């Protein structure tokens, strides 16, 4: 695990709790720091600034380590996130995000540093008791292509209020392409958040830790 990742994850954890499938744009004129530990196969850290409610720019670092082979990737990227559409309903909100970026990749199945391209999308729907999201994130270069698809479904045992602690129980299903993990990895998660900080942690069907931290300010 790179020092960069540890530093950002540590800062995020110190700043407060950990997270859910994070929105890539929290709010206008706001910063988002996020770190995720994905069962040993995926680790990611991100920092974004949103000049507008529908746009954020920043960068990240992702590490992919196959649990099938010895394959590993280290990718640094700059990224632009865009809120394609938001639906503000009476008791719910739905969003469609898209993003793209460029970066550099190293790995142990090719030599040197390659140009890496990143693209993805996320759709989510949320009330104060129900949460659903689906995210696709692709990292590719001339030597590899890895897509991570993540589905999350959540239920809150009570309706939280601003200033109070929100509690969510979630199930997550995740698939990797490019021989990072075989089959669908599922996880059960507990998510807590208060104000601009949140924490999410749980265990996968393989008995591994799945965790995420995010801080918005």
């Amino acid at each position: 695990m790179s020092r960069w990742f540890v530093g950002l994850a540590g800062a995020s954890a110190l700043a407060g709790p950990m997270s859910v499938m994070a929105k890539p744009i929290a709010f206008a004129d706001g910063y988002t720091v996020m770190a995720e530990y994905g069962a040993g196969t995926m680790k990611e850290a991100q920092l974004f600034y949103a000049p507008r409610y529908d746009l954020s720019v920043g960068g990240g670092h992702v590490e992919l380590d196959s649990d099938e082979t010895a394959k590993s990737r280290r990718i640094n990227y700059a990224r632009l996130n865009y809120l394609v559409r938001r639906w503000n309903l009476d008791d719910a909100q739905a969003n469609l995000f898209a993003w793209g970026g460029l970066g550099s990749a190293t790995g142990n199945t090719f030599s040197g540093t390659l140009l890496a391209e990143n693209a993805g999308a996320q759709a989510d729907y949320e009330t104060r008791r129900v949460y659903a999201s689906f995210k696709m994130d692709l990292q590719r270069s001339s030597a590899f292509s890895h897509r991570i698809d993540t589905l999350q479904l959540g239920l809150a045992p009570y309706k939280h209020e601003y200033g109070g602690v929100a509690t969510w129980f979630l199930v997550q299903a995740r698939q990797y392409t490019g021989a990072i993990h075989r089959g669908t990895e599922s996880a059960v998660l507990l998510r807590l958040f208060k104000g601009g900080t949140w924490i999410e942690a749980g265990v996968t069907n393989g008995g591994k830790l799945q965790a995420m931290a995010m801080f918005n300010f």
Partner: protein
Amino acid sequence: MKFVPRVLISVLFVANMPVQAATIEMNVNGLVCAFCAQGIEKQLRKFPATADVIVSLEQKLVAVALKGGQDIPDTELRRALTNAGYTVKAIQRTETPLAELRERLKQGKP
């Protein structure tokens, strides 16, 4: 007897003065999470006339306490909420102090 007309004029003058709102209450769609509230609060606190802000997810309500004698035009409020990513359904001005509104919301009353 000159006193009586003066009093009458004063009373009529005061009665015709516009009432200064203490609080602006806004009904907002899409308020489902703390991040929504955080973004809205950040936008509204940028107005020099804002003394305080409260957000109720339960009542889908955003309230701004105004500094004495000041106001924020509806167009500016709508722009701020739109820029925060939310939809304003209605705006009303009241004389209810924010502390009283906060207490009412704590008791679950609209």
